[in-house]
């Protein structure tokens, strides 16, 4: 869905064909995964009511300050994939949809399922911890809001700190160690 980061000249190409091909492949793999996380996050922002495709893209552009090149049409296959993901007999529905008619126009609203919320928490935590881990190599700084969230010590799923009664990670079942417990030690 995300095709690239906007530059000042959209027609400019990397001169070397082999460089361009390598970077296109690498970036498209990277952006495919990030695009899914962002789409899930925006759907989550709209709660149980959900959000329809066009509004989702509008939010996406607003939240990224319109800095990304987006292939709008490929959003719908991606949403379909999130709604009915399957691989070798394993199935997941991260989002669910329902249809309504607004201003004589049929709209399909998407909202997160319980499974979707769990998976998103994991993806967010994993992604942030990954960025934090590689920040030293790549000379940038990541400051995680540790006062707001805890991260599963096993699989890195992000859990809101307000849910301090949560004892076990919902993804891997690991017994969570809360910060106050660690301090006591």
């Amino acid at each position, binding site marked *: 869905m995300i095709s690239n980061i906007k530059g000042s000249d959209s027609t400019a190409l990397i001169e070397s064909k082999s460089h361009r091909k390598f970077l296109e492949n690498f970036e498209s793999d990277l952006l495919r995964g990030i695009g899914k996380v962002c789409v899930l996050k925006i759907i989550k922002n709209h709660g149980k009511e959900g959000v329809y495709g066009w509004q989702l893209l509008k939010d996406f552009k607003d939240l990224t300050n319109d800095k990304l090149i987006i292939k709008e*049409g490929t959003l719908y296959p991606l949403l379909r994939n999130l709604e009915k993901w399957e691989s*070798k007999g394993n199935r997941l529905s991260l989002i669910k949809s329902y249809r309504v008619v607004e201003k004589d126009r*049929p709209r399909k609203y998407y909202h997160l399922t319980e499974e979707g919320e769990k998976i998103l928490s994991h993806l967010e935590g994993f992604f942030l911890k990954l960025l934090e881990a590689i920040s030293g190599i790549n000379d940038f700084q990541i400051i995680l809001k540790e006062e707001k969230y805890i991260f599963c010590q096993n699989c890195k799923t992000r859990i809101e700190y307000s849910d301090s009664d949560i004892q076990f990670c919902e993804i891997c079942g690991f017994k969570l160690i809360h910060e106050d417990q660690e301090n006591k030690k």
Partner: protein
Amino acid sequence: MTTENEKLVNNFLEEIKKNLPEWLKSNETKVEDILLEINSHLWDSAQEIAGSDDPDRNSIQEAINRLGNPKEIAKSYKNRGTPKYFVSEELWPIYTQVIGFIVAIIFTVIVITQVVLIEPNNLLQALTNGLTLSFSSVSIFIVIVTAIFVGLSHEGYFPKDLGAKDEAKESKTNFYKPNEFLFNGLFGVLFGLLLIVMPLDMINLFRIIVNWIIGFLGGTLMVFNSASISLELQTLLTIVGIFAVITGVTNLLKITKDIRFHLTMNVILMITGIVDLGISFYIVANLHLLSEVLPIAENILLFLCVIGIIGAIVEIFKTISTNIKLYGFLEEKKISSTA
């Protein structure tokens, strides 16, 4: 909203529809669902670009451009399945099953035709001819089937789109086939008891069936000495009967759903399989026992024994493989219950 603008939008949607994968196109409701959603998006986008509820042609064209190439959008719906060589991982099991089925059918038909009809007195020549002919025929079919499956994988087909059973449901229940256990169980017990109690009658029944088949194919009927059988053959039939009864009872006991019990029963079936294999080798070493049942060329009897040995080996490996899968399933269950 002018007719010309509608035409522009409809052409775009039609282009997407035309390029959708076949498995999706066959479901009209899903296609309609996809196109309705993109249509809504397009008009929302065009209205925003135009800044009015009645967008002009340029705004619609801009909205279409933002959506992207219709072929690329349609192609994104094909992105299903995990790549594995050129055939997707999801279609791989069906692909190998089809190949296995074709190889088995072609090989069996060609080799049996060679052994029984073309070279009945030269087993080696028959097998060589059979293998050569099978190899060339099988190669052609493998190329055709592979090409079909590569195409299906490229289009994003899943087994269910081809009418295959639900893999997720199957994998959890495929160890439990009560109808098969009941049939195999009753047949095994009945067949075994009849072999023990009335071996001569069973052999005569077998001879009648063989003669009926020969008669049906227009061959010369065989003449048998149906009055008696040797003590050695009678003893062998009793042993075969006892193990058929044990196999039958084991299959009947497998009707219970307990996986651990299945594992134990499968070990018994593995032992009976090894005994069957031993009996087959014993018959090969004492071919006169088989010619007492069917007075035909030794080569054909030997060929029948080889088929029996292959069958027994396949059965033993099938039981081992089922037990490995059941053990894995049991371990997985144990892990998920402790988590």
